[in-house]
């Protein structure tokens, strides 16, 4: 049993790592394509059919490019910072159930690495730790833009973690558990949480943009203001790791939102599974759509939005939920 458990866990970890690394690559492809279409152009077209092999080309380029480490940086920190970003993204995936459980040869497989009973908290905690990637990378870089970017990322992460936590609190109160599987099961019986908690859903969704650092909250690495922020001094695969981390995060969040609010994978039938991936795809697409459609906001607007709009709303939501539940 123990050995089987060990083997199963290792297999799950390997699968998640491989799949989501690849997905990150595809994510860039999708992004370029979507943006191109929205801007009435074609996007990558030359490498492979519809430019599909562009991913491979980019990958080869990143892997083979020289790993430049500037003279004044704090070397060990500079080196591990991208790893932190990527690693925390994948660590967060440990508590996400990607599929309903199924049976292979009499052995029940749960497509989740570890169903700990504080799953949600764990996910947000680890995602919060992802902050250290940009933060340490920026501080170690010996570059003004990088430092500003690090400061911005610290401010944004700390602030929006509050909103995330508070907005998720109301659904947690209703379900009475922090495990995503329990969330899924609860919604089978009672219907989607988004029906009970539309405000929490919207708040969480908005906060997700901040957590992943996507447009319109892309101030962490805003090209026109601070070049590439914490990534300015990076090159090659280290920069690539930041990229992978960001896209992996987007994917995971896109999994988490439907799991919490939109019924998840339901009872685990094939149709339900398809529907689940559809929801995930929509949210991922929505990230790209927003980037094409929206301008960036200023840091002070971002803070204003967080502390004066979203947080009070979230608190009110929690209070109302509490009163209604009583």
């Amino acid at each position, binding site marked *: 049993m123990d050995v089987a458990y060990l083997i199963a866990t290792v297999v799950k970890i390997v699968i998640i790592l491989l799949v989501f690394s690849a997905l990150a690559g595809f994510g860039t492809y999708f992004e370029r394509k979507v943006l191109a279409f929205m801007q009435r152009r074609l996007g990558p077209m030359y490498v492979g059919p519809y430019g599909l092999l562009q991913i491979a080309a980019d990958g080869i380029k990143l892997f083979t490019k020289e790993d430049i480490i500037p003279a004044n940086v*704090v070397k*060990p*920190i500079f080196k*591990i910072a991208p790893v932190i970003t990527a690693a925390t993204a994948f660590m967060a995936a440990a508590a996400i159930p990607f599929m309903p459980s199924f049976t292979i040869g009499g052995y029940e497989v749960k497509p989740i690495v570890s169903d*700990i*009973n*504080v799953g949600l*908290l*764990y996910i*947000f*905690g*680890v995602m*919060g*730790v992802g*902050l*250290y990637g940009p*933060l*340490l990378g920026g*501080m*170690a870089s010996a570059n003004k833009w990088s*430092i500003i970017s*690090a*400061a911005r990322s*610290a*401010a944004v*992460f*700390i602030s929006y*973690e509050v909103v995330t*936590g508070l907005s998720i609190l109301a659904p947690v109160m209703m379900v*009475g*558990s*922090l495990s995503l599987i329990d969330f899924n099961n609860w919604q089978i019986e009672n219907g989607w949480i988004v029906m009970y908690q539309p405000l929490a859903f919207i708040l969480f969704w908005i906060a997700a943009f901040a957590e992943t650092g996507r447009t319109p909250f892309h101030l962490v690495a805003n090209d026109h203001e601070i070049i590439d922020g914490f990534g300015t001094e990076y090159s090659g695969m280290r920069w690539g790791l930041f990229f992978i981390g960001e896209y992996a995060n987007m994917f995971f969040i896109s999994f988490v939102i439907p799991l919490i609010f939109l019924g998840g994978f339901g009872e685990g039938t094939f149709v339900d599974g398809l529907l689940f991936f559809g929801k995930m795809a929509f949210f991922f697409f929505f990230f790209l759509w927003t980037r094409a459609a929206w301008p960036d906001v*200023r*840091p*002070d607007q971002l803070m204003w939005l967080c502390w004066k709009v979203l947080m009070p709303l979230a608190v009110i939501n929690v209070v109302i939920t509490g009163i209604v539940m009583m």
Partner: protein
Amino acid sequence: MFEAISFYLFSFLVIASFWVAVTTSQALYALTALAAGMILISGFYFTLGADFLGAIQIIVYSGAVLALYAFGMMFFDTTREVKEKKPNKAIVTTLAVLAAVLTVAIVAAPIVSQNIVALYPSVESVGNTQQIGVVLFTKYLVPFEVAAVMLLVAMIAGIVLAGKKMDISLTKLSESEIEKQNAEELV
């Protein structure tokens, strides 16, 4: 077996990172090592069945406390080498070791003689988070509220201390207004 391995692994890592945190002269190393140590400590909590505590450890310590420190470091220009006078190492080490050994002697003494009695034995059938919730909002309700008030006070104090002129947004001001602002500050 797993427990022993994880305990010794985590212990080694935590001690190493904390040791780096207190001895290094490179502030970034200290920050990184401390953050790593904090996260690794949550590993102990998970092994000890205190899941909620572990999650809180990651969120609060790594996510908030150390991020704040990092923020502070950017303010204080200590992101590079920290120059410090070195006090007498022998005395400091002896004192620290003595204090630690004596503490363990005292803490271990009643445990050895078996006179600790469980006040709120945990019920196995309910999850850790739920147990904590029950105890926190019954027995520890008053301390909980006090802690809440304390956090509020600390927050207000922090804002008042650090946040002078928070209501002025430099990005919204024009160039000449900012210059005026700076001139006033110099006066």
